[in-house]
């Protein structure tokens, strides 16, 4: 395997950005402690009488590195780094759910075929055409408050995310199943579980890794969209999507309120996509034999 992401400058920059986001998310309390702020405390002193942040760039100062939120004066830097926690956790969690479901369903459908495969394939078709965002909005609106919002978002986004990876893995399994080494394993007396574990899955590893990486930004995007629409994680938990939603109303008077969470979302999704592309190039399974 030719694993050399370093060759690719874009992928390296992407990986660095992803690492910075992960660090920021992990050390959000530390970073905020250094700044001396938290994402929940109102600071009305930073606002003028109409609720607009006082000072340059939405109230950027030594106290508020990214300025403050209009109307509340909450620290925007704290909101962005805590928002990274929400976005990355929900993105990774939803991706994990989607990948586990996709691998289980896709490989078994490709391997066993028959009526099971037909049912799975039609289900995938239906899910592809399904208005999943509307469904998620509806579900978010009617779900009882006792269900923790982040978990609900992870489960729902993940449950709608598996068809694409399942379809790809089904196709690859169909091809792998006809490889001579699979036939040879069957001829040696290996059962389906062993063939799956020893012969098929190791050859799908690269695809799964690449696909998982490219799924994450999409998942982060869906979480942001749901929060933007007010059915994602519940306030006051910071979320890029909700901040962006709030910032739309203030674009004329305080554009920086949109720029920081929006920029974070943009950078994070771009970085994950670039890393995914780099991984695809590095792990491309055109190995000899």
């Amino acid at each position, binding site marked *: 395997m030719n694993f050399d992401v370093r060759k690719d400058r874009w992928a390296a920059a992407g990986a660095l950005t992803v690492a910075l986001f992960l660090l920021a998310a992990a050390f959000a309390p530390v970073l905020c402690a250094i700044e001396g702020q938290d994402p929940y405390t109102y600071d009305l002193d930073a606002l003028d009488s109409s609720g607009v942040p006082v000072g340059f760039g939405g109230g950027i100062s030594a106290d508020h590195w990214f300025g403050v939120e209009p109307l509340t004066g909450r620290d925007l830097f704290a909101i962005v780094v805590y928002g990274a926690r929400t976005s990355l956790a929900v993105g990774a969690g939803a991706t994990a759910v989607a990948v586990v479901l996709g691998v289980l369903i896709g490989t078994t459908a490709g391997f066993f075929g028959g009526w099971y495969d037909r049912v799975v394939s039609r289900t995938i078709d239906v899910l592809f055409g399904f208005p999943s965002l509307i469904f998620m909005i509806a579900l978010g609106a009617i779900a009882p408050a006792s269900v923790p919002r982040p978990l609900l978002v992870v489960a729902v986004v993940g449950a709608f995310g598996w068809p694409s990876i399942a379809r790809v893995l089904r196709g690859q399994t169909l091809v792998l199943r006809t*490889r*001579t*080494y699979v*036939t*040879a*394993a*069957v*001829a*040696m*007396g*290996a059962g389906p579980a*062993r063939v799956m574990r*020893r*012969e098929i899955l*190791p*050859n799908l*590893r690269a695809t799964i890794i690449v696909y998982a990486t490219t799924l994450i930004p999409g998942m982060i995007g869906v979480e942001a969209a749901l929060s933007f629409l007010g059915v994602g994680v519940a306030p006051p938990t910071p979320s890029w999507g909700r901040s962006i939603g709030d910032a739309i109303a203030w674009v004329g008077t305080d554009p920086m309120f949109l720029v920081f969470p929006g920029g974070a979302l943009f950078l994070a999704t771009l970085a994950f996509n670039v890393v995914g592309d780099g991984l695809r190039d590095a792990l491309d399974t055109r*190995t*000899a*034999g």
Partner: protein
Amino acid sequence: MGQLLAVEGLTVAFGAHEAVRDVAFALRPGRVLALVGESGSGKSVTAMSILGLLPPSARVTGSVRLDGEELIGAKPARLRQIRGGTIGTVFQEPMSALNPVFTVGNQIAEALHAHRTLSRAQARQRVRELLAEMDLPERVAGAYPHQLSGGQLQRATIAMALSCGPALLIADEPTTALDVTVQAGILDLLRDVCARTHTAVLLITHDMGVVADLADDVVVLTEGRAVERAPVHDLFATPEHGYTRALLEAVPRLEVAPREPAENAGPVDTAMAVEVTDLVVSYGRKVRAVDGVSLHIGHGEILGLVGESGSGKSTVARAIAGLVRPDSGAVRGLSRARTGIVFQDHTSSLNPRYPVGDSIAEPLRIHGKSDKGRVAQLLESVGLRPEHARRYPGELSGGQRQRVAIARALALDPVLLIADEPTSALDVSVQARILDLLADLQRRIGFGCLFVSHDLAVVARIADRVAVMRAGEVVEAGPTARVLGAPREPYTRRLIAASPVPDPVEQRRRRREAGSVGVA
């Protein structure tokens, strides 16, 4: 001079690696020049460099003159005119050379329109003429590629290559994917085209039988160098270069020498390793791949199962191995643990994710046996070193991979070894060594062996008995010398007649004979 194509000092480099080094040859109209070599010899790269079809990473130097015009460094627009115009090309895989979504006639007409201005009626007329010249029925024009046989498709691609009346036809392994009886027809067709239209043919092949059958002159390539250039008769009669001699010696011939019996086998070994009776296997409802086949293989005996594609020979092997479920009939004397199987495709017979030692140990692990020391012992028995266990399949050559596959098949001390075309994807010199290895192992260990092959010469070299299959049935079976030396069935005779022998004089004699008997 009258030289149509003159190649001088042709060198093709990919980075630091020179795939072709200082190759020179010339071709006159109406002649067939064969570029012969094993895989990696540079023969296809040479052909592609004439067409200007190498990837941009290739650095081509030297001179290729077509009718005096230099092609190396020629403008892309000019090369496009030449490709399909002055030079027609036929590739190995007719199925992938044609677009599956257009009719054959449509694609030939497309080739015509690319180089000439013709009305649709004129094009249709020309397509009809071309198909007739290829001995194809008119309905082929309206057929899609999947509706035609491999031989018909290859005739259609030849028609396409000839559509603009090229001066040179490059045929890259044109018959390698075809059955021998079909191959014979295609070779006749190429010979006929060459004589009638005075088209020069550059034939690229690894098959010495094809060379003997078709070529006038031969260039032998190895590792990118042309080591010998000679008229075909001289080359076969008095090969000068050591490599050419080794290559000719490695080619299996249809002569039958009695094999030494297995050491473990008694003088009369009546014990059956496996007995198959009235085997019937069908795919779907209609297709009977195997239709009432009965066979037996003794301990220490190699049974050669020969037939053309679609004859059901591989299905018989797979049914015995337990890979397909027979509709009826019985396979007696075997448990799966006592069967080893070696497949044709050495590129995918080993899982690329594991070192080959793991692949060899896999059957032992499946059956809960210890693999300690056994892997090294198996590797040595197939002529590899214990260190090879840590290598990955991609790091081994085709011949080495096939040795590993044999080691894996022998891991459980099989009563029966099933070898399904084990050498068909290998170069002849490698094939010869693998056949020797199989014969040697079989003598030492004394397993029964079902050797499936389309190649009569290979079977003649290794099998004690031969069964000939056609359309799901065994048409003739018996000792190798009897079946191949004095065949009783017309089909066996046709098969033997169609297999080209690596000897141009003998091949010409056989062709005349076959012509008078009416063999296609």
